[in-house]
């Protein structure tokens, strides 16, 4: 399937250590994609300071799977904003 950027939003971060937060994002992605390499390749951003979540390139079915994991509030597609 075609991959698009999805934002996996997990709300307020559960750890104060940003490294731990990012590590948990990679682990979650690895669980769905099957390998560390695939997880690193897919990851676009780890949101780890102001809140928790990440952006990753995922197919629709991968996005649906990750949406079912604990701690995930929403998984939705990226969209665009414009200057005003």
């Amino acid at each position, binding site marked *: 399937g075609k991959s698009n950027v999805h934002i996996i939003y997990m709300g307020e971060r559960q750890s104060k250590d940003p490294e731990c937060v990012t590590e948990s994002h990679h682990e979650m992605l690895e669980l769905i994609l099957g390998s560390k390499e695939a997880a690193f390749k897919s990851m676009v*951003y780890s949101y780890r300071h102001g*809140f928790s979540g990440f952006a990753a390139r995922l197919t629709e079915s991968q996005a649906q799977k990750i949406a079912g994991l604990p701690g995930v509030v929403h998984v939705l597609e*990226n969209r665009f904003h414009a*200057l005003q």
Partner: protein
Amino acid sequence: TTRTWDYLHLSSHFPTNLLHETNMGDGIIIGLLDTGVWPESVVFNDEGLGPIPARWKGHCQSGQLFNGTTDCNRKLIGAKFFIDGFLAENIQPFNTTDNPDFMSPRDNIGHGTHTSTIAAGSFVANASYKGLAIGTLRGGAPKARIAMYKVCWNVPMGMCSSADILKAFDEAIHDGVDLLSLSLGTQIPLFAEVDERDGISVGSFHAVTKGIPVICAAANDGPAAQTVHNTAPWILTVAATTLDRSLPTPITLGNNKTILGQAMYGGKEVGFTDLVYPENPGLRPALAGVCESLSFNNTSPVGKVVLCFTAVIRRSAVTAAASAVRAAGGVGVIVARNPVDVLGPCANDFPCVVVDYELGTQILFYIRSTRSPIVKISPSQTLTGKPVATKVATFSSRGPSSISPAILKPDIAAPGVSILAASSPADPFMDGGFALHSGTSMAAPVVSGIVALLKSLHPTWSPAAIRSAIVTTAWKTDPFGEPIFAEGSPRKLANPFDYGGGLINPHKAAEPGLIYDMDTQDYILYMCSAGYNDSSISQLVGDVIVCPNPKPSVLDVNLPSITIPDLKTSVTLTRTVTNVGRVNSVYRAVVEPPFGVTVRVTPNVLVFNSTATKISFKVAVSTRHKVNTGYYFGSLSWIDGVHVVSSPISVRTQILQFYTDDN
């Protein structure tokens, strides 16, 4: 900005005002999510600025034609770029040859340079666009520091992905910005506040709950109702007004009558020359004179000035007419249209002057009544002060909010029309480093500059307290007491859906007397009332949240405004005010009820002392209307003899609810 701050009574010439009381915002860090910065611009000079605040954790990121070490200074203290979300999503590879941009915080479009100048640019004397709007240019908080988070890319008008915006929020919160300014919008229909597809509302929630005010443009989809963007109750949403400045451009007809059009024409006078209006014989004679599709079948415009008419709101009609006339050998164009408050120069200094339909029709009648009509076009002038009126700009998006009509949006208005600020060299409207631009993009950083000053004056105030101070003290007239109109068809007196609390009044906002404060609990109350489920809210706030049953009323959210979109008979709502003025104060309620609506406040006297600093009151609202009405407007003001703490009231009677009245 050569007029903005004097107009808002925030002149640097007065030694005792908010600007000086706050040392011009020194020490405050304004983060902007935008198109980057042109660091060589003189507005980023750091003369007279002290060291970078020690708490600052951000930095300047190097990239294409941007050296993070040398391009930043004590004014521009942060500059990062975020493109991974954009690149990962962009189906076509981002071709910087076709769409020039820099893989760095450097600004190609000029928009981010413009907005950051408005918020916090340093003083620059004798700035102008081709001699127009000349004066001293500066930001609202000229000693505040700027941190640019470049999230928008030139494809070709500036697009910004949610993934990049969220990362910028994430980093800005970490870096230690004091406030965030966003001149971005999405598209109608909007996404819910807990839906991260609206990266701005989610990112801003986390910023605001950490004490960082987020100021956003209301968007440029006006003058239709329900077009306002960035409507989350934790965001300060900004509409755009005009200044008391215009750029009249004399059009002298052969009968010696002079009509003042509007233009940004800095070229030479076009002496008396032939004036034509393209008309065809047949059933639709005026078709040839439509600006966006001019045709010269029966008239040659060589060496002539052409008059045309358009119903198109976008500026494209003016630019299309100018290029058609120029290509056909014409020497100028007069465009008759409804006022839209967006001026721009035409390419190659070609004279293109706009007039309204009334004046355009007068010019047409002159053409039709004369065998050899002629016209002279003089360069634009800058007219400041009376008799130029303040209007809410046509393009400024209007409330009510389409997501939550009980939350008044926009919150406030600020000047956003023909604002002179720095831009980048690739900006086609730039001259000598400066450009005049219009949009709610320009209004938002005006408010951001003022919020920087307020943060400096009241460092412990929450974002909601600052918003309340701004909304409840705003001018309902222009700064000189004249009414504010809302541009549209027809022009009408402005109401809260045009300008929220009104036009921002910085001095009054500094000492509001009372504030309607809010914290995370209030935002949770809002989300419960909006019907968001417990688990979404719990994740958003990072705590277990169980919404009360029955659901709280959205009308009880402690906003500095009262908006009732569906009043059937009567309703009672609650507000709580906090005294931030003299400890021992007595405030009395003064109500101006909306037409056909009764408003009762209990208690109607609030007595504050050292122990009573926060008091709740109830507002009972009932309608006498027997049919579904539109909105009627009024106000509730708390007055202590010194302060007037005024909340706009908007009430719509809905006897038949959930009903579109489109008959």
